[in-house]
């Protein structure tokens, strides 16, 4: 029988695949995805950095749980680090010291874990900026933007609960700050604090509670979000930059098998390798230098990890406002910063929905914008980053003061003013830069590329030779859309019935003019303009 012969001849791999296909339907899955096309651009690997550092964090984190004791029971340290011998420390601190000094390779894994966490958050930040500035968040990808945004926010809190676990002097100070911030919440602040800490600060519960949040609750949610994020990337197919042959209806690139399997798989090892080498060479979070936490001890230069720095900045530069009314205290000096902290994040998180409302654009977008071609969006993003960095300066005001010999008062006042002024200036400057770049593109299309070659004409005039662009370049530079701003409908409709535009509609038209109106985009060259210039005389 030919069928049995065929079965006998099938290689082992195929037989395993047959077995799995009969139960999981993997052939249909592979048909759609094995040769899936991914476009290539260096900025598309930023998200990969995040994914891989997340995997590294999970791998190393599991290893660390084998040795870490999440307990605040006090013991006397007797480990091999001499300067702390005989000091009363918590079990959490003791076991972290044990991992760092007595477990072979423990310090390496701890440092890889912490470095990977920093890379993870920095990677998410930059990846988010890439998606933002290229408009990759537009329909149909708004939900995936939200998933990514949530991953960033949860990553911040996972990082915070993680570096608080060793119960060292630096992280304990951070936890104390958290408690003080919670106390400032009107009406329920003291209750939340008592419930979170299981009583008064510091109590004996916060490390075990942070532990289950850090290793189970938050990473569990994040793992689900990562999977959903990736499924949507595959389902929507990746965005691509405009170029010859690239349209809204296709995706141009190389197939998953073998090119991206090798590139992406290899990239995991590159990221892991670099982080391992960094962990070998650069010490991070040396808790033995800080010592165990005691509520009445502190070190100078206390700083959170970088991603919490902007919240720290808000708290440091806020004036100490307190209002006492009818036996109650409104601690505005602390409460306002902890309200602004999420608002700063939410501003960027909901931007895609604001933009789609303003523009009224309901179409799918798979071709990316060059940032210059969306000046208002680019300017908003740049202003947001500027705000973030202003606050980061505020968060490290003591370090700026000591390193650059500045007065801490002037830095604080600088940040207070810059908080309001710098984003506005950056917005205006970025918009102008974008428009300048648009003008340059326009000149390039109409007059060609400046070659730098100077030619002398027979009558003695010197001119620079401009080289006409290729069809590919002409198309790439003119492929973007230039939408027209929304218009208010006439106050009186065609039947003479008065129709009043609501305040929302008026705002929308105003914003739309800001996005696409005059002064917000340079009209791109038309075919007529091009032909008029290239057809004959005056071609410089």
């Amino acid at each position, binding site marked *: 029988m030919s069928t049995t012969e065929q079965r006998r001849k099938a290689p082992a791999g195929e037989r395993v695949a047959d077995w799995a296909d009969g139960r999981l339907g993997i052939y249909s899955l592979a048909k759609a995805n094995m040769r899936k*096309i991914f476009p*290539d651009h260096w900025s598309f690997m930023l998200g990969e950095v995040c994914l891989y550092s997340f995997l590294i964090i999970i791998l190393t984190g599991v290893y660390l749980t084998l040795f870490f004791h999440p307990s605040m029971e006090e013991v006397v340290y007797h480990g091999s680090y001499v300067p702390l011998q005989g000091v*009363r420390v918590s079990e959490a601190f003791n076991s972290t010291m044990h991992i760092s*000094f007595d477990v*072979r390779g423990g310090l*390496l894994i701890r*440092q890889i874990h912490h470095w990977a966490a920093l890379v993870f958050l920095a990677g998410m930040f930059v990846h988010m900026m890439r998606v933002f500035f290229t408009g990759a968040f537009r329909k149909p990808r708004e939900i995936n933007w939200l998933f990514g945004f949530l991953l960033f926010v949860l990553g911040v809190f996972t990082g915070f609960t993680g570096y608080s676990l060793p119960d060292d002097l630096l992280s304990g*100070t951070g936890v*104390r700050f958290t*408690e*003080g911030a919670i*106390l*400032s919440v009107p009406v*329920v602040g*003291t209750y939340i*604090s008592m*419930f979170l800490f299981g*009583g*008064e*600060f510091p*109590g004996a519960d916060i490390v075990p509670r942070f532990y289950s949040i850090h290793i189970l609750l938050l990473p569990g949610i994040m793992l689900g979000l990562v999977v959903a994020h990736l499924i949507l990337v595959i389902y929507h197919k990746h965005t691509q930059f405009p170029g*010859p*042959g690239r349209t809204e*209806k296709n995706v*141009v690139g*190389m197939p998953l098998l073998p090119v*991206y399997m*090798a*590139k992406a*798989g*290899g990239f*995991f*090892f*590159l990221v*892991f*390798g670099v982080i*391992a*080498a*960094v962990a*070998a060479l650069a010490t991070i979070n040396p808790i033995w230098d800080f010592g165990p936490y*005691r*509520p*009445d001890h*502190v070190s*100078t230069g206390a700083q959170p990890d970088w991603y919490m720095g902007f919240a720290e900045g808000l*708290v440091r530069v806020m*004036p*100490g*406002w*307190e209002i*006492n009314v009818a036996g*109650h205290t409104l*601690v505005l000096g*602390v409460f306002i910063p902890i309200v602004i902290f999420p608002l700063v994040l939410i501003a960027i998180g909901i931007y895609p929905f604001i933009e789609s409302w303003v523009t009224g654009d309901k179409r799918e977008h798979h071709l990316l914008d060059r940032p210059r071609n969306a000046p208002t969006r680019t300017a908003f993003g740049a202003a947001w980053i500027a705000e973030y960095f202003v606050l980061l300066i505020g968060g490290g005001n003591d370090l700026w003061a000591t390193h650059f010999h500045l007065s*801490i008062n002037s830095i604080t006042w600088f940040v207070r003013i810059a908080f309001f002024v710098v984003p506005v200036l950056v917005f205006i400057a970025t918009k102008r830069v974008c428009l300048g770049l648009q003008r340059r593109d326009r000149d390039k*299309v109409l007059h060609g590329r400046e070659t730098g070659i100077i030619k002398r004409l027979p009558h003695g005039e010197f001119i620079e030779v401009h080289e006409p662009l290729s*069809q*590919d370049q002409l*198309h790439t530079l003119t*492929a973007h859309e230039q939408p027209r701003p929304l218009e208010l409908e006439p106050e009186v409709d065609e039947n003479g019935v008065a129709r009043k535009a609501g305040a929302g509609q008026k705002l929308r038209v105003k914003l739309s003019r800001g996005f696409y109106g005059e002064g917000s985009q340079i009209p791109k060259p038309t075919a007529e303009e091009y032909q008029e210039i290239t057809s004959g005389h005056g071609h410089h």
Partner: protein
Amino acid sequence: MSSQDIPEESLPSTQGAAHQGAVVSGEDPFADPGLPPHEHRIQDIDERAAKRSERVVAFLFTLSMLATVGFIVAYLAIPVDKNIYVFPIGHISALNFSLGLSLGVALFCIGAGAVHWARTLMSDVEVADERHPIEASPEVKAKVLADFADGARESALGRRKLIRNTMFGALAMFPLSGVFLLGGLGPKPGTKLRKTKWSAGKMLINQNTMQPLRPEDVQVGSLTFAMPEGMSEEDHDFQQEIAKAALMIVRLRPENIKDKRELDWSVDGIVAFSKICTHVGCPISLYEQQTHHVLCPCHQSTFDLSDGGRVIFGPAGHPLPQLQIKVNDKGYLEAMGDFPEPVGPAFWERG
């Protein structure tokens, strides 16, 4: 190794330059010219270059294997407590250094090999795949809506209001049990944040010497930390009590004390203030002798100890609480009561 004897016809310059499926219309100079032709890499046309790439990839993979062997050797051979000097980093753990570097090399070489393989030897021909709209066609949508209407009608949820309303009630109420379960997370605040271990007659214990303080122990310009007598580091609640009771003591010249109550509550210019910052609770630890200012290192709130602990800079909202002290008949400093107001950060019920 040169590429001199490559057959002419396989050189990129002689390959067709036409675009695939290009439609360049005469009217539109900006029309999409279609995918550009594939440009061959040296490895595509020269087998020797391809062989070189193969050797590079194999070399990287071999290096990775050697690095893993190095990792195992380092793990087994290097003592965990050995330190070495590495320029320019300084003294670091030999084990961490060698494990990290060998692991880093082992992983990096796998990655570099795979990427080099993909970039030089795997096909780099770009192909186009179609996209389809994400949203369903009107027929599919109509079918789904009809199915849903059928299902909803068959459930009779809309018709039998009693079922619907009681079900919503039950579903809305059961999460309340969860909210109540969370009540066990901690005690009610009560007056916990208002009281510390200080009370009338408790002597001030120097935290360095663990001995009761006498006025003559406190010099002008020095900063001394103290805790109430009867507290011990071994106490199970030591951490949460010291978080409120921590005290700092400085000696000023009585004529330099600007605040009248501060002067009344001092002994020969010795004043005792809470060490816990009124901003978010960090312990204050920096003292400037000349100006009598103390600074919290966390957020730089600055307090003037010669003027009732007034805030002179930074985000703190109210002065540091002062502890009234006196000298007892044995000549030791002792408290005349608890702090008159809650120490540390402000909260809603503080008032």
